[in-house]
């Protein structure tokens, strides 16, 4: 699976910032500073605020910031869209867990698995990988394979319209990455 695709790089080349988050603002040093702040915060969380650990923490944060700047994806999430995506994800992944738990303990196990091939509208790279991972945590669907032009999805039951649900999810992922899909925005 190739994460970095040339057409995506062209799409977001004007943004240089913290991955996976993007704040408005430009410039390499600013992006570096944001990443460093994020990793410093993460370090403090991991050591539970113990400042005597900083002689390891500061070099670790610098190395992590350098590495993640070098490896950053050309596709970046938009921060305020993330705040819209998280509640949607929490509610639907809870529904997904309840749904499969109920089917697993039900005496007759009401499942009817089949495969669906969903044609991607998202650009290749991080947005597609992100969508595939999200699909696996939502009710009744499991990503089977990311192919060149479509996502192969294993569906646990045949009682709902999987394709239209995947389309809605794809539009949400597109909004999260600031991508405009051919079929238009989320209605």
């Amino acid at each position, binding site marked *: 699976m190739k994460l970095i695709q040339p057409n995506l790089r062209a799409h977001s080349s004007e943004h240089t910032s913290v991955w996976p988050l993007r704040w408005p603002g430009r410039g390499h040093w600013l992006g570096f500073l944001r990443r460093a702040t994020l990793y410093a915060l993460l370090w403090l*969380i*991991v050591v539970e605020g113990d400042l005597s650990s900083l002689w390891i923490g500061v070099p670790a944060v610098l190395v992590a910031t350098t590495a993640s700047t070098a490896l950053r994806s050309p596709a970046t999430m938009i921060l305020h869209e993330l705040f819209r995506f998280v509640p949607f994800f929490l509610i639907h992944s809870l529904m997904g867990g309840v749904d499969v738990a109920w089917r697993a*303990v039900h005496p007759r196990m009401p*499942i009817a698995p089949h495969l669906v091939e969903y044609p991607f509208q998202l650009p290749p790279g991080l947005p597609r990988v992100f969508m595939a*991972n999200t699909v696996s945590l939502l009710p009744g669907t499991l990503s089977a394979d990311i192919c060149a032009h479509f996502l192969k999805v294993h569906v646990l039951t045949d009682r709902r319209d999987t394709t239209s649900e995947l389309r809605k999810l794809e539009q949400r992922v597109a909004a999260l990455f600031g991508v405009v899909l051919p079929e238009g925005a989320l209605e």
Partner: protein
Amino acid sequence: MTPSDYIAVPLLVSGVMFFLAGSAGLLRFPDVYTRLHALTKSDNVGLGLIVAGLVVEADSWFVVGKLLFIWLLVLLAGASVANLITKGAMQRGTRMWTR
């Protein structure tokens, strides 16, 4: 029991229920694909509920942050590994169970 226990205990108990249901699915479901459905989704919810229960009881914001970070990492690892196993099974031609 302190007041926070009355919130934390139901969350922890329901979290364990989801882990139990996920394990039931792992044992009862007929093939690798359906078993992954049970594992990824109900373990994600089970761990989420247990983390929520522990957040209620946490002493400091650092512990809250650490618990949420652990959940995020497990979420990412669980979904990615499920995709890799499914892809591997498909490539090896593992038959899909159908009703």
